[in-house]
């Protein structure tokens, strides 16, 4: 096998990509890339070696230049003044928005909820994450573990449940949807699969005048949102409203249309997007699998057949194997179908299970035992060759150097069962993509896709969602869809794919008077509010009854008050500061220190409270009159604005950082409907 180090293929040509050392990233960006101009790998390799030498010389020169100019590199010298004109600096302070793959402006929509502007709050969500009603019920919520409140108080704001509130309380939002041009731009785009990734691409392209065709193998659009998420978590009407909203924007939806050959359709389109998900559930090849196959089901296929009402019953005793969210959906569905003894078995300890905490909790609350450290050994059959149980072996987890090893203990247990559901993972599968049409696959049969552009090695073909890099969740599919749509628009307009639109940002003072701000800066000390649930007994008997009822208006408004408004940034101007220390004294969380500058390591140590959370930046000012600098640890700031309120000279100001991640909908050419 040839050595492909530093090489990647784009438009059938080999390119070189080299990561830039941390200290030079401000100047050179994240990586350097250059085309070798060669299609043949063997010819590209010597060119690559030359290019890498050149890159390394460039690093060297830049480093010396930087030293000459007195530019200090991170780690070795005094800290540099923070560049707040870089939109990413304050974006990172908004923990929830930064953690969200689609970078939804969470604090802004929570404030809109607090003002009861549900339509605006919904639209803010819709523009960024496309499916607020669906995600408000099913999102994996990367925002919540990131939420600042989890560090400053106890539990994060219930961001996901508040997103659902925007859906539940909105009125008709049709007038706010973008206008779809009557005259099309002549470009045809084919989307394969009608899941969240493809639907996002469609939504982002239709307002630009593209003609979009979506191929779906099932008889309804929605992808795994319809087939794999049970309706007691996501009611069909919510799904239908948000999915058909996009179809109604003018997409040509072809249901029951399984594409069995990419080659056959590729020439009919200017670009093709593959959003077919990871549809292949993993199997468990152990003794008895073949013989008992009638009563062994692949979890995701089983959930699909329930969604389409092909399956309506299951045995009384059910074992679910697996520790992820699909396993949780399987066991909860089984109970609702009439099983009265459902157990979940998982090889790893409970603490390492992949399922989201809240989904695991819901399963436990419904009375389903989770047997951890339990590894399947054999399917057991009765005399008639029918499944009667399973043999497991107990495992023990041992951790060495942070790595986990599961050691068999030799202890075996037998659990009786009528049916087994396998939820041990999913793969993507592309039997319908011909190997010779220019799409390269890696050794695991995953397509090689550029992380930024979503483009495959075939210039016309883009991937996104689970189809690109394997199973993730809906919000990632949406984020991929936005990027793919930008790439497709660039591609069809013959603009370089790496020439991507920047995020829309601005930073506006919120001062309304000497001590008045345009936002509510009072910090609520309330604990996280619980979301009301349906009656358990009733819910367990009804497959379609939604378990979580969502916040009522009062709960929603109270929960909204818990948001710390992290987008309200503390902006410091050293030339106005008289070093009176008023901000230092008033800061409730001791974030602000005036001290002499030093290396980052030493500065972090000598703050009023040492800044130990390295994920969070320090905000460093320029030199003050006394030669000191102001250093603010962003980690614990509660954005109460008291520093600015107690500042006699206005050196501190509270400014709202509006950060809107780039997607096609905020391009100038997209028009909004004229409201009569």
């Amino acid at each position, binding site marked *: 096998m040839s050595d492909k180090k530093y090489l990647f293929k784009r438009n059938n040509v080999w390119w070189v990509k080299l990561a830039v050392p941390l200290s030079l990233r401000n100047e050179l960006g994240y990586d350097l890339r250059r085309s070798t101009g060669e299609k043949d790998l063997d010819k590209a390799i010597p060119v690559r070696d030359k290019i890498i030498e050149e890159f390394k010389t460039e690093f060297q020169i830049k480093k010396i230049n930087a030293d000459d100019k007195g530019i200090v590199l991170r780690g070795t010298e005094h800290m540099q003044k923070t560049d707040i004109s870089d939109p990413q600096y304050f974006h990172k302070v908004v923990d929830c928005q930064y953690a969200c793959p689609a970078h939804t402006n969470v604090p802004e929509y929570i404030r809109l909820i607090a003002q009861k502007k549900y339509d605006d709050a919904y639209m803010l969500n819709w523009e960024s994450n496309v499916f607020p009603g669906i995600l408000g019920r099913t999102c994996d919520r990367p925002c919540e573990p990131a939420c600042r409140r989890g*560090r400053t108080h106890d539990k994060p704001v219930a961001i996901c449940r508040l997103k659902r509130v925007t859906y539940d309380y909105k009125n008709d939002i049709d007038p706010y949807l973008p206008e779809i041009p009557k005259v099309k731009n002549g470009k045809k785009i084919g989307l394969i699969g009608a899941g969240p990734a493809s639907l996002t691409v469609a939504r982002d392209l239709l307002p630009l005048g593209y003609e979009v065709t979506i191929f779906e193998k099932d008889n309804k659009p929605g992808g795994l949102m319809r087939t794999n998420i049970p309706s007691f978590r996501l009611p069909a009407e919510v799904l239908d409203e948000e999915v058909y909203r996009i179809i109604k924007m003018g997409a040509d939806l072809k249901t029951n249309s399984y594409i069995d050959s990419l080659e056959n359709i590729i020439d009919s389109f200017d670009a093709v997007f593959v959003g077919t998900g990871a549809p292949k559930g993993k199997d468990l090849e152990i003794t008895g699998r073949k013989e008992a196959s009638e009563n062994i089901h692949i979890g995701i296929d089983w959930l699909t057949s329930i969604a389409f009402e092909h399956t309506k019953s299951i045995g009384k005793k059910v074992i679910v194997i697996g520790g992820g969210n699909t396993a949780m959906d399987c066991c909860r569905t089984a109970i609702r179908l009439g099983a009265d003894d459902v157990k979940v078995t998982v090889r790893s300890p409970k603490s390492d299970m992949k399922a989201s905490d809240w989904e695991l909790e819901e399963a436990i609350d419904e009375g389903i035992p989770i047997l951890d450290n339990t590894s399947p050994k054999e399917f057991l059959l009765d005399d008639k060759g029918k499944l009667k149980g399973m043999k497991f072996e107990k495992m023990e987890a041992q951790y060495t150097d942070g790595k986990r090893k599961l050691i068999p203990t030799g202890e075996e247990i037998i659990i009786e069962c009528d049916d087994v559901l396998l939820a041990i993972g999913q793969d993507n599968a592309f039997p319908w993509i011909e190997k010779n049409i220019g799409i390269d696959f890696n050794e695991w049969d995953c397509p090689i896709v550029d992380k930024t552009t979503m483009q495959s090695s075939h210039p016309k073909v883009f991937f996104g969602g689970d189809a690109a890099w394997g199973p993730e969740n809906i919000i990632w599919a949406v984020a991929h869809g936005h990027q793919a749509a930008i790439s497709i628009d660039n591609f069809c307009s013959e603009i370089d794919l790496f020439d991507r639109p920047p995020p829309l940002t601005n930073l506006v003072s919120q001062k309304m008077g000497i001590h008045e701000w345009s936002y509510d800066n009072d910090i609520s000390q309330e604990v996280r509010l619980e979301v009301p649930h349906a009656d358990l007994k009733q819910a367990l008997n009804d497959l379609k009854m939604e378990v979580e009822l969502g916040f009522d208006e009062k709960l929603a408004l109270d929960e909204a008050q818990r948001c710390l408004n992290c987008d309200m940034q503390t902006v410091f101007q050293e030339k106005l500061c008289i070093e*009176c220390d008023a901000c230092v004294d*008033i800061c409730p969380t001791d974030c602000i220190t005036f001290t002499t500058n030093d290396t980052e390591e030493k500065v972090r140590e000598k703050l009023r409270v040492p800044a*130990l959370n390295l994920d969070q930046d320090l905000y460093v000012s320029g030199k003050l009159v006394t030669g000191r600098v102001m250093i603010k640890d962003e980690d*614990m700031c509660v954005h109460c604005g008291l520093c600015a*309120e107690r500042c*006699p*000279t206005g050196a501190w100001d509270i400014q709202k950082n509006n950060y809107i991640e780039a997607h096609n909908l905020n391009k100038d050419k997209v028009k909004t409907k004229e409201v009569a």
Partner: protein
Amino acid sequence: MSYFKPINKHPNLEKNKLGLTRRDYEGGVSTLCAGCGHDSISACIIEACFRLNIEAYKVAKLSGIGCSSKAPAYFLNASHGFNSVHGRMPSIATGANCANEDLLYLGVSGDGDSASIGIGQFIHAIRRQVNMVYFVENNGTYGLTKGQFSATNDLESKNKYGEDNLFPPIDLTSMAIQMGASYVARSFSGDRDQLVPLIMGAIQHKGFALLDIISPCVTFNNHDSSTKSYDYIRNHNEAMGKTDFVPLGEEIKTNYDEGSSVEVKLHDGSRLSLEKTDHNFDPTDAGNSLDLIRKKNKEGKIITGLLYVDNKCKPLTEIMDLPDKPLNTLEQDELCPGSEILEVINNDLS
């Protein structure tokens, strides 16, 4: 406007021996002008009490009238307090001191309260060696009545409206040394590295401790022609080297060159260690201190640091031989000497 500071605090905030954090020593949110030096002094008092593991209920905050005298509301919420008539805080302190020796008395006053209306009271509290820390939050102006000159304003320092000052200032530190104060220091509200150890020393000192703290008034006396502005003090501050407060039983960590530091032992055994910038300076010699203050005043410098300390003085309660216990805890048998002794006294009279 925010009237409350959020109660949540940094989870890693340092705790003292009582298990309290700095925030447990706070008071209400200040209603003084934003940027007032007095607020920095309050923060330094908080810091000193935190570091000395002081129990707030064993502290009495006393004040008169003025911006400075509002300050006790902004620190040590759990302490006793007495806001007296203008300039009469020293009398209240004297009385309280006689009645209960066990409390720590923090008198907070300003240049108007101490150098004008209350100067007589001030002098007599010193003369009587009341065991207290007396803070003068000195901004050279009457902030509460819109910026007239106070008695500590320098001759060359104009007011905000450009008017000349006609009278020379009273130097409270030299006056206090002359009147017999046993711990005299001057500092600047904007230099908390210097101020906090000085407050800690003053709290541990037994006798009258004066802290004359220059505290810029951001509203009326922080302009270019003021000699009590942030900028002026920073440019003319002549600090008497570094002062370290060393609690009882701890080693001095700072290494000074031999002969360049002086160590003063306080009543409870804790020590103050001073870095000497002037080799002839001895803070235990009053004459020496007075000369130095006069010399630096002439040079137009503001000398800050520990100026004078007498660690052998006798506080008021010892001079008057008062009972060690608070008066309100004295029992019947301690208060009433009994008929036998009464008879002896009566016989003496006949």
